[in-house]
Every structure is written in structure tokens, then in C-alpha cells.
């Protein structure tokens, strides 16, 4: 007799998953538009790519992945009713995300100082559009993580009720997932 494997419930609020799918759809369209435009303008994209700070992209990938790891640990901690540990992990996640923000701002400063702005060519239009749109999502994610941190400090979450932590975590992992695609697309593949 076969026994059906029980499925775990979707982490967080169901509404966040509809929001995540909507966000992924928008990013997906932008990624496809980038890939097609690159195919049509290979010289412009090759030249633009040569000026990118690929080390900054690598550091940012590490920072976002590490931040996601701390968020997973924060969810694990609150499930065990370890509020203090949850708060510490959220602070570590925010610290890793801050590295991303600082490196990204430095990268923008470097590009703009070198005379590459939104109107330079098609590559830079896509580069700023894609990376800034993602950057805005990181900032929103950081605000959400900070809000969860303060709510956790005031005892809003426990091992019984932690939907808010899971919801914020799911959004943060979506931001991470998008960057995992954006990094090879924009920084690695020529």
C-alpha cells in the first residue's frame, strides 16, 4: 500500500506568493528583452560589458546569498521560539544586504563618473534599468526585514505565530533569486 507524502504548507502568507509571481513575471520580461536586444546589438553590449565592474557583481552576489542564509536561520530560530536568535540573524542579514547597497552605490558612482549614464547606449539603458529596479527591491526588502526585526523585539512572533517572518523571508529570497539570474546575464556572459 502506498502512502501519500504529506506536503508542507507554503511558507508565509499566500498573498506574498502571488506578489512574488507578479514580480518574477516583470523581471522575466526584462531579462528576455535584454537577451534579445543583446542578440541584435552584439558590439554595443560587448563594449558596455567590458567596462562593467565584475568584481563588484561577484561581491554583491556573495552578499545577497549570505543575507538570504541569515534570513533562513532567522525563520528557523523563531520556529524554535528563539526570539533573540531570530533578531540577531535578521541583523546579520541586514548587515550583508548593506554590503550589497554600498557596493552597488560605488558601482553606480564609478560608471557615472566614467561618463556612462542611462542615455549612453542601449546596453547602459538596460544595465541601469535592470540593476536599479532590482536595487529598489533590495531596499524594500531591507525595510521589510527591519520591520520584522522590530516587531520580533516587541514579542509579535513566536513558535506558534511566525507567518510575518516567513512572508518577509519569502520576499527576500525572491530578490536573491532574481539576482542569481541577473548576475550571469549582465556581468558574466559576454
Amino acid at each position, binding site marked *: 500500500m502506498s502512502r501519500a*507524502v504529506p*506536503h*508542507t*504548507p*507554503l*511558507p508565509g502568507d499566500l498573498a506574498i*506568493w502571488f506578489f512574488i*509571481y507578479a514580480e*518574477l513575471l516583470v523581471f*522575466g520580461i526584462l*531579462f*528576455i528583452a535584454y*537577451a*534579445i536586444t*543583446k*542578440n541584435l546589438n552584439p558590439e554595443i553590449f*560587448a563594449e558596455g560589458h567590458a567596462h562593467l565592474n*565584475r568584481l563588484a*557583481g*561577484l561581491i554583491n*552576489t*556573495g552578499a545577497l*546569498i*549570505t543575507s*538570504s*542564509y541569515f*534570513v*533562513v*536561520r532567522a*525563520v*528557523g530560530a523563531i*520556529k*524554535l*521560539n528563539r526570539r533573540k536568535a531570530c533578531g540577531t540573524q535578521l541583523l546579520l542579514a541586514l548587515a550583508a544586504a548593506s554590503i550589497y547597497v554600498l557596493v552597488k552605490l560605488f558601482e553606480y558612482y564609478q560608471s557615472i563618473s566614467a561618463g556612462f549614464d542611462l542615455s549612453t547606449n542601449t546596453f547602459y539603458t538596460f544595465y541601469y534599468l535592470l540593476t536599479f529596479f532590482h536595487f529598489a527591491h533590495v531596499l524594500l526588502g531591507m525595510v521589510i526585514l527591519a520591520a520584522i526585526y522590530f516587531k520580533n523585539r516587541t514579542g509579535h512572533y513566536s*513558535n506558534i505565530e511566525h507567518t510575518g517572518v516567513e512572508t518577509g523571508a*519569502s520576499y527576500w*529570497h*525572491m530578490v*536573491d*533569486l532574481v539576482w*542569481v*539570474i541577473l*548576475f*550571469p*546575464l549582465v*556581468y*558574466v*556572459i*559576454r
Partner: protein
Amino acid sequence: MSVQPSNKLSSLNTPFVRSPANILGLLSSYRNGLTLLVLLALTTISAMLGELTPTSSDYAPLILVILVVKAQLIIDYFMQLKSSKPFWRYSMSAFALVIALIIWICN
């Protein structure tokens, strides 16, 4: 009269590793740590492959395979969709796979 604590309460009062719930938590923590290390290693390999060829990306298919593997690790272990209903897991995986395929076709 002594009252026997429930399982949930005893897991809060006993030392960290003794409770079955905490042992599961500890195992999950090791798994997530391993996932982080694999993701960081794959990111470094991917960046190095991109640096190998100065003019064209001959390694693009390999870089895209790495992209899909990394996305799957995030979906399964960070988003914790591995044991969720297949729709959620596979639709998320399909997103990464379709984007990777389109990038490969256009490259």
C-alpha cells in the same frame, strides 16, 4: 502535585540539543550552511568561467547550467519549497529554466 510539561514546553526548557525539535533544527542549520557554501562556490566558478574567454562566452551553456542549479538550491532550501505542493516548486523552477533557455538561444 507535579504537572508533566507538554512536548512544546519541554522543548523550550531542556538544553538545546536534547529536544528532537532542536535536533531537527540543528540538522536543518547544517544543511542550510552547506547550501550557502555550494552557492558561493558555484558563483565563484561561474565568474571565473566568464573571465576565461576575452571576446565571446564559450562557456555560456555551463554558466547557464550553474544558474539553474543555483536557482533550484534557493527554491528548495532557502524558499523551503522542496516539500511544498509540486505546483509551487516546479513553477518557480520553470521560471529559472525558461529564462536560462532563452538567454542560451539568444546568446
